[in-house]
C-alpha cells in the first residue's frame, strides 16, 4: 500500500524540514526553560551538597540562613559541639557582595568559614586551581565565573584580598557565583561598623557592636545517633531553630525558588501551547494547499481513513522532527546562558510525550478539513 504521507513529505522535503526546524526552535526554548528550572534546583543544592552537614542551627523563629536572615553568637558553635551526638560543628556567615573588577562590579555570594574549623565548605572536586583558605585573613577563593585569576588583588571593605584558589560550578541558590573568605574577615565585612558609625553610636550612648556573630552553626551527627532526636534536643535546650539537611533543602528548593519555578512553569506551558497552535496552523495550511488533491482522492474512491492517516502521520512526523531539532538547538546554545541550565533526559522524554499529544491534537484541524472536503470540488477546474 502506498504511504501517502511519506510520498508527500518526500515531495516537499525541504519545506517540511525547514518548517519542522522552525517549530523545533520553539521546542528548544521550552527545553531551555525547563533546563533553567533544573539549573535553579541544582544551584540551590550545590552549597548544601558541598557542605554535607546534618544540621543547620539558626536564630530562633527564623528560616535562616538563606530563606530569612539569622544572627547567632559565634560561641554557639562550641555549645553545639558538646551536645551529645554531635560529631563536628562550625560557624558560617553568608552575604552578598559586589567585588570590583576591571569589567565592572561582580555580584557574588560570600561564604565565611573558619579555615581551621571542623567543616570545610569547599568541595575538593570543585577546586580547579590553587588551594583552600589557609590563613585567617585577606585570602579569598573565587569561582571561575567571576573571571578573577590566582593572585589577583581584590579591594574589599577596609582590606585587600588575594585570590588563592579557584573553584568551578559553585553558585548560590540565587545563581550568584560563590566566593569563600575566612570567618573572621566575613564577620568584619558583615558585622563590623565603620569608624564613623562607631563614633556616632558612642555619641548616642550605644555600646560598640559585637562582631563575633555568625549566621548559622552547622553540625554533623555521630553515627548511631538519630538526627531528628539531636535536632529536637537543640531546639528544646538551646532555643534555636534547627533544620535537618533535608528540611534545609526543602526550604531552598520548595520555598525559595517556588515563585521562580512557577514563573518558568507558566512560560513553559505557554510555549508548548504556542507550539501546538503553530503546528496546527502549519498542518491546516498544508491541508488547505492539498484540498484539490484531497477532493480528487475522495472522488476516485480513496477512503477517508487513508487520507486522515496521511494528515496524522505528517503532523506526528512534524512534531518528532521539531522535537529532534529542538533538542539539537537546545544542546547547542544552553552553555551560552549566564545561569546554569541543566538538560535532563527525563525532561526531554516528557516533552516528547507532550509534543506527540500536541501533534495529534493539532492534526485534528487538518483532519476536520479533510472530512469536510467535497469530492465534487475536484470537477470544474
Amino acid at each position, binding site marked *: *500500500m*502506498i504511504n*501517502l504521507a511519506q*510520498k*508527500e513529505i*518526500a*515531495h*516537499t522535503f525541504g519545506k517540511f524540514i525547514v518548517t519542522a526546524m522552525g517549530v523545533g526552535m520553539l521546542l528548544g526554548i521550552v527545553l531551555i526553560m525547563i533546563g533553567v528550572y533544573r539549573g535553579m534546583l541544582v544551584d540551590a543544592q550545590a552549597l548544601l551538597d558541598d557542605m554535607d552537614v546534618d544540621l543547620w542551627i539558626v536564630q530562633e523563629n527564623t528560616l535562616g540562613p538563606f530563606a530569612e536572615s539569622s544572627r547567632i553568637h559565634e560561641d554557639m558553635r562550641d555549645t553545639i559541639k558538646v551536645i551529645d551526638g554531635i560529631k563536628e560543628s562550625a560557624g558560617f556567615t553568608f552575604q552578598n557582595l559586589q567585588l570590583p573588577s576591571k569589567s565592572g562590579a561582580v555580584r557574588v555570594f560570600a561564604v565565611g568559614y573558619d579555615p581551621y574549623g571542623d567543616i570545610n565548605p569547599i568541595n575538593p572536586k570543585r577546586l580547579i586551581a590553587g588551594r583552600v583558605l589557609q590563613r585567617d585573613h585577606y585570602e579569598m577563593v573565587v569561582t571561575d565565573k567571576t573571571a578573577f585569576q590566582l593572585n589577583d588583588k581584590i579591594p574589599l571593605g577596609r582590606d585587600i584580598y588575594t585570590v588563592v584558589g579557584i573553584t568551578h560550578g559553585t553558585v548560590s541558590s540565587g545563581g550568584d557565583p560563590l566566593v569563600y573568605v575566612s570567618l573572621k574577615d566575613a564577620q568584619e565585612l558583615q558585622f563590623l561598623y565603620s569608624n564613623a558609625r562607631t563614633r556616632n553610636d558612642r555619641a548616642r550612648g550605644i555600646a560598640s557592636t559585637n562582631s563575633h556573630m555568625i549566621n548559622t552553626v552547622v553540625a554533623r551527627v555521630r553515627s548511631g545517633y538519630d538526627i531528628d532526636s539531636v535536632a529536637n534536643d537543640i531546639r528544646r535546650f538551646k532555643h534555636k531553630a534547627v533544620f535537618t539537611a533535608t528540611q534545609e533543602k526543602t526550604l531552598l528548593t520548595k520555598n525559595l525558588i517556588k515563585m521562580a519555578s512557577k514563573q518558568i512553569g507558566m512560560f513553559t506551558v505557554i510555549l508548548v501551547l504556542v507550539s501546538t497552535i503553530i503546528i496546527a496552523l502549519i498542518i491546516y495550511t498544508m491541508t488547505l494547499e492539498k484540498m*484539490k*488533491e484531497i477532493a*480528487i*482522492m*475522495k*472522488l*476516485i*474512491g*480513496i*477512503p477517508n481513513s*487513508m487520507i486522515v492517516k496521511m494528515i496524522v502521520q505528517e503532523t506526528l512526523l512534524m512534531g518528532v522532527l521539531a522535537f529532534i531539532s529542538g533538542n539539537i538547538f537546545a544542546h547547542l546554545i544552553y552553555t551560552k546562558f549566564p545561569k546554569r541550565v541543566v538538560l535532563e533526559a527525563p525532561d526531554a522524554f516528557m516533552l516528547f510525550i507532550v509534543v506527540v499529544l500536541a501533534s495529534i491534537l493539532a492534526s485534528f484541524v487538518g483532519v476536520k478539513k479533510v472530512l469536510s472536503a467535497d*469530492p*465534487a470540488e*475536484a*470537477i*470544474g*477546474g
Partner: protein
Amino acid sequence: MNRQSIKVENLVKNFGKGDSLVEVINGASFEVNKGELVALIAPSGAGKTTLLMMIGCVEEPTSGTIWLGDEKVYENRWLTKETRKIRREKIGFIFQAHYLIPFLNILENVTLVPQTNGVSKKESEAFARELLDYFDIEDKAESMPSSLSGGQNQRAAIARALANKPQIILADEPTAALDLKRSVDVVKMLKKIALDQDVAIIMVTHDEAMLPLCDRILKIENKKVVSTEVPKKSHIL
C-alpha cells in the same frame, strides 16, 4: 447477454427548497451500453456535470433510479453506504485537467486505486505498466507529473481511470484544454478504450467537432435527457 452498463430512470435533481427550489434534472432516463462512447452535451449550467456526478455516486439525486452494471445503486436513496467503494471499484474518472496527485509518480498515481482495492503491489504495477505502455508513456512510469507534458499527463490520467478495470468511465470535458489535434487523439483513444476494455464511457463535451467520433449523443433538453444520433463526420476529422 446483457450489454447494459448504465441505466438511469426518472432521475430528478433539485437544489434548494420552497421558493428557492431549482430544478436541474427532471425525469432523465437513458442507458449506456458496454463498449459505447457517449457524448453528453448541453448549454452551460444545464446540469451536465451534476448528471455526471449523480451517475458517479458523488452527488445524491433527489429521486429516481440508477443501475451500474447489474447493481441497482440508487432508488430514491443510496442503496449502499459505500458509494466511495462503488466509485473505487466500478468507475473511472477523467477530468478536464489531468489532476494527477502531484506528490506521487505516474506509476503510483495509476496504482493508487487498485492497491486501495486490495490488489497486490506487484499485480497492480504490472497492469499499470501495461496501461502506460498502451498509452506510450511506459518510460515515464517513475517520473513525477510535474516533469511531463500536458498530453502525457492526460494520458497518465486516463491510465489511472482504467487501472481499477472499471465498468464505466465518466469523462468531464477531457478535451477542453487541448488543441484540436490533441482533442481528436484523446477522443479516438477513449473510443478505442471503450471497445478494447468493453467499458461504457460518458464524455461531457462542449466541442461539437468531437461528436462524430462518438457512438451516440445524450443531450439535456428541458431538464430531460434525449438520445440522438451522431452527426456525419466533419471535414476536419
